[in-house]
């Protein structure tokens, strides 16, 4: 009866079938169950009211390539959507603080914006898992970046006193 979509949330992939019931009401089939859903746009463009089987929920929507980031309650969900005819959505690519850039090689990027106040891992130094690599000050707190994996420091891209942003490369290990 309805139109079919494939939605990916994390590792899970859902098939969603939508039929219109009129008056902003939809019949939605998901995971073998049918739901009566009301969707209203509260304010343009981001805030929605979603009523699933008479339970009202607020949802804040942000766009992302191939899908949406939807905040409901205290959680923010990253979702990819495709028309079923176009097949499954690709896996979600998330930013990692430790990015594998080669066999046993890691690029460490900053998970926060702030100022580098101390660097304890110099070029060439061999560090162990759990060692403090550097300290970044943000919001009056000194945050110690610890090694997720051990290795030799190949390169340090920042210096003390430098401002860093989320996602900025800090150093390379391997």
């Amino acid at each position, binding site marked *: 009866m309805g*139109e079919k*979509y494939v*939605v990916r*949330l994390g590792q899970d992939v*859902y098939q969603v079938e939508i039929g219109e019931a009129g008056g902003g009401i*939809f019949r*939605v089939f*998901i*995971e073998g169950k049918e739901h009566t859903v009301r*969707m209203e746009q509260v304010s*343009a*463009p*981001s*805030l*929605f009211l*979603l009523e*699933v089987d008479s*339970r009202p*929920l*607020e*949802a*804040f*929507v*942000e*766009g*992302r390539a191939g*899908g*949406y*980031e*939807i905040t*409901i*309650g*205290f*959680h*923010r*969900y*990253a*979702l990819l*959507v495709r*028309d079923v005819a176009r097949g499954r959505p690709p896996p979600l690519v*998330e*930013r*990692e*603080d430790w990015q594998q850039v080669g066999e046993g090689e890691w690029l460490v990027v900053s*998970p*926060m*914006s*702030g100022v580098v106040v101390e660097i304890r891992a110099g070029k060439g130094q061999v560090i162990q898992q759990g060692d403090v690599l550097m300290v970044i*000050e943000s*919001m*009056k*707190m*000194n*945050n*110690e*970046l*610890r090694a*997720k994996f051990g290795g030799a420091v190949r390169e340090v891209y920042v210096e003390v006193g430098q401002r860093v942003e*989320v*996602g900025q490369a800090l150093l390379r290990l391997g």
Partner: protein
Amino acid sequence: MFRKVLVANRGEIALRVVRACRELGIRSVAIYSEADRNALHVRHADEAYLVGPSPARESYLNIPRIIELARRAGADAIHPGYGFLSENPDFAQACEEAGIAFIGPPPSIIRSMGNKLRARQVMKEAGIPVVPGSLHMEHSLEEEAKRIGFPIMLKAVAGGGGKGMRTVFRPEELPAAVEMARREAASAFGDEALYLEKFLEPVRHLEVQLIADAYGNVVALGERECSIQRRHQKMIEEAPSTALDERQRMELMALASRAAKVIGYQNVGTLEFLVDGDGHFYFLEMNTRLQVEHPVTEAVTGTDLVMDQILVAAKERLPYSQEDIRITGWAIECRIAAEDPFNVFLPSTGTVLRLDLPGGPGVRVDSAIYEGMEVTHHYDSLLAKLVCWGRHRKEAIARMRRALREFKVVGISTNIPFHLQVMEDPHFVAGRVDTSYLERKRPVRISVEEEEEAAVILAALLAREARVRPLAFPLPTSRWRLRAQRFGYGLWEPWRWARST
């Protein structure tokens, strides 16, 4: 009474002071750093001046510049708020010398209480029990530690706010801890002097709110329970405390009043105490300024501490005496901060895309947050204070749960979901808290199946809709936050905190 007050602060407390000034018919002057160009405290004030670049030492800590602006604006008083220059005796002195009233105690009192070792001596002499430990640092820290017995707390003499502080459990850990604490203390206060206290546990952290006028009238406004701390930073406070019965409350208030009278205290101030399992009080330190958590006291006493501290700073008499003070009901404060409880409380910067504040009966919000706000790394992470009052503790907790659910922030992470978990924790509900509470109570990322399913359904509905009329949504700001999920919700903690300098 003052005609114009300059507020030497930012964030929710600056707005709090601006509001009190407006209610008193006093003109308010805001100062702002580059990062705070659009801030709420600026928009609410009668006048506003750029104080300097974003880093605090170039703006909110720049004494000559602030005095210059106060002069230019014709302010006859300065309110320091909390933090920044509020406990800096040189600032109070500079105000005095510029002929501008400092809304706080005299510089000499700030100075003597600012030296934590000196404060211990003063209180000990006044007959107030202090935490066992050093009174004079005549011996080496090693000898003192041996005398006191491990575990001990290393503290900065010039300290406060958890900086330069270390707990040491074994003698062999002492040298390294001393070195780190000295370094922190030197960089935070320009003074590496340390002293020792016995490390007590389990203890509660209680404090007594005081207010005193220039005519020797001192009123104690009951206690606050502040045991719920993360790395020596308070997170949840309440008034009264479940630790005290009426007799103990009276005893503690009398103790605090006596201390204030001995030192000739003026304006608002707080005496912090540790309370052990046997109900013994130990003086910890005195804060010679308004506290973040003052609203819980206001809620249960019906006072207005900011208005009243302005009054007494203007040499008016306290409009109430100790006999007028009644503690009515129960109040709880949750500090709403920009940090991700599901990612080891990592500070969260970004743009506030959506904001809904709670309302209705018994709810007070003191907030500096607004839609469109850029939360930067320059200042501490406090965004707002949510204070709920109820006729009894159970009602206050129920209201706080309700209000936390109504408090909606999108665009940055906040600790709101963790506050809710505390409010639902049976230990907290039973009033069984001590300073180690947050070491045991960790945030748990609970996925709500209904909400997940709703998100999936909404995504499909939006995709369908988009074919008819495409909508432009804002772009997500901090996608990396989802990282926490894969790291097992706090099992892997690559980040450790220390109070920065």
